[in-house]
């Protein structure tokens, strides 16, 4: 799909609102190490996997931010940042920029502000976020279901059908689990939930997926209460 850089699609959004989000990106403490300016040389584009298959350019993103082109920044914030592979091949930048790091910051701002484009990008992703936040491991064995990965081959069905026995057929005793990738201590999970609580990560989830927030809130508050913590995510 061709990216519309005219900004017409966002003509109805107040400039002040776009600028507010732009300033939020610049305010992040990592910003000064991710963008020093831009030679507009395109070396990052040459290294970029996403640029080969999408109408996507780390050069244009870095350039728009370095030039403080707020309208263009807003287009990228909504229509481009989710195409990035976060591989950091663009760290070869001769200006010592990290366009991939800049994109991480832009995504975070998009999520924090509950932008519709971020919600759309994260549709279908709730189960993964649930796994990582609730169990402490992300791509659990029980996620390998034939209907979820039909393009990976028939072995996925074999794994799903034999999952429980095949997990017990793993010699490391920490790996007999099916719902998490390995056995994580209860105390460790409690500590993870306290980290989410103290760093405001649940507020971010609330912005993009209210339903997921409520499920996680129930799971976490209950476990924390059992462990003797009086913690509320509201």
């Amino acid at each position, binding site marked *: 799909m061709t990216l519309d850089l005219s900004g017409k699609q966002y003509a109805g959004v107040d400039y002040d609102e776009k600028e507010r989000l732009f300033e939020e990106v610049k305010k992040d403490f990592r910003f000064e190490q991710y963008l020093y300016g831009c030679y507009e040389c395109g070396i990052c584009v040459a290294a970029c996997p996403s640029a080969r298959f999408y109408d996507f350019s780390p050069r244009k993103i870095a350039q728009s931010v370095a030039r403080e082109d707020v309208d263009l920044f807003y287009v990228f914030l909504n229509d481009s940042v989710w195409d990035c592979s976060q591989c950091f091949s663009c760290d070869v930048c001769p200006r010592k920029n990290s366009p991939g790091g800049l994109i991480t910051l832009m995504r975070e701002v998009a999520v924090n502000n509950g932008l519709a484009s971020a919600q759309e990008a994260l549709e279908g992703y709730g189960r993964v976020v649930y796994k990582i936040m609730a169990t402490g491991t992300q*791509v659990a064995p029980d996620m390998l279901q034939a209907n979820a990965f039909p393009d990976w081959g028939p072995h996925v069905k*074999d794994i799903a059908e034999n999952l429980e026995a095949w997990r017990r057929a793993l010699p490391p005793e920490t790996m*007999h689990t099916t719902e998490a990738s390995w056995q994580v201590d209860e105390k460790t999970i409690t500590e993870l939930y306290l980290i989410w609580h103290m760093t405001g990560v649940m507020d971010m989830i609330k912005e993009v997926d209210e339903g997921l927030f409520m499920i996680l809130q129930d799971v976490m508050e209950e476990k924390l209460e059992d462990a003797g913590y009086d913690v509320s995510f509201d």
Partner: protein
Amino acid sequence: MIPHAAILNKAKDRKFEADPDQAPTEDYHDIVNQLEKEGEWEVHRVPEPYVEVKNKYGRTKKIPVEQTWHHKSCGQCGHIPGYSTSIFWINRKLGLDYHDPTDQTSCTAWNYYASATSNAAAQAAVAMRNFAAAHETGYYPIIHCATSFGHYKETRQQLIHHPELRRQVRAILAKLGKKLIMPEEIVHYSEWVHAVRDRIAERQVHDMSGIRATVHPACHYHKLIGEDAVYAPEVYGAQRSAIITSTLQALGIEVGDYSTWADCCGFGFRHILVSRDFSRSFAVQRKIEVMKEEVDPDILITHDTGCVTTLDQSQFAAKAHDRNVGLAVMSDSQLCALAMGAHPYKVLQLHWHSTDSRPFLEKLGVDHQKAFAEFEQAVEELKSGKKEYMTWEDADG
């Protein structure tokens, strides 16, 4: 057309000796130690015995040999469990003391790079909680996933440069009853494999001299905070990171070069889960097909959760489009375990892979039919209740 072969052959003749005095970055060792002197954190020192290697800028990096705390990978343990199993199996066969912890969470970076539903303080707190947990056991952290490795390097850099972040994370850890502990080195398991490759080769039971392989290095290993990556003059003339290639060469394997060596695999973090058309296209067109056309290898060896997943699982659907695919994919740990005589299904767990490694096993003289029958027999014993789990002893039986 670009004469790739001529350029690559020329590059092979060049030897590059990195001079630490000319390094373009400050030495993280100095700052990590300085911050310890200032009481900002405690440094977890690499235990002896260690192997000294050189990083990208010619600075010395210590790689622990044993007393290692294995920071596992959710994608490896969850979907490619023979990957981690092989790492542990090699440690056991070499008689090295290690710890496989349950007081460990994922680094959570796969999710962070996919969805951005986290922030710098949370990511740093997760990292430092794991490092503190390792320190409490007396074992030294060794990282299985290149993304965890890359993300922890990023975290170290942020903590080094931002006192406010240090204060915030120290306060969070204090509430968990933990201290702020920074490892002297952030070590990837492939570096450990590199460091012990001669010991592995000494125990090699399969001749691999007739094998040709290609290598894919993980972006988060050598591009994201690239300084920590290991380089060696005898491998690619220190023009590229040495790990994997050095190991394959120690096993007598011919490593074939190809023009998109430095390209990503196409994993994309969110793409591999919700936009797989991209991952598949990239993996097939920019990696697998190029390797097959330029090298035609027997096997592709890589070393990361995302890279093994993408390069292995992306080939099945491409077959329907008559693409030039069909290249078996394994991690360096699986290949080393196999070289040392590990069981292809009980240890390497190749039935979790999509690509067909049987032709490769046949070339090595491994009877895969017999091996799979043995595995199925073991699974039957588990299903019937005769045994509860497959033990390490069973895996060698």
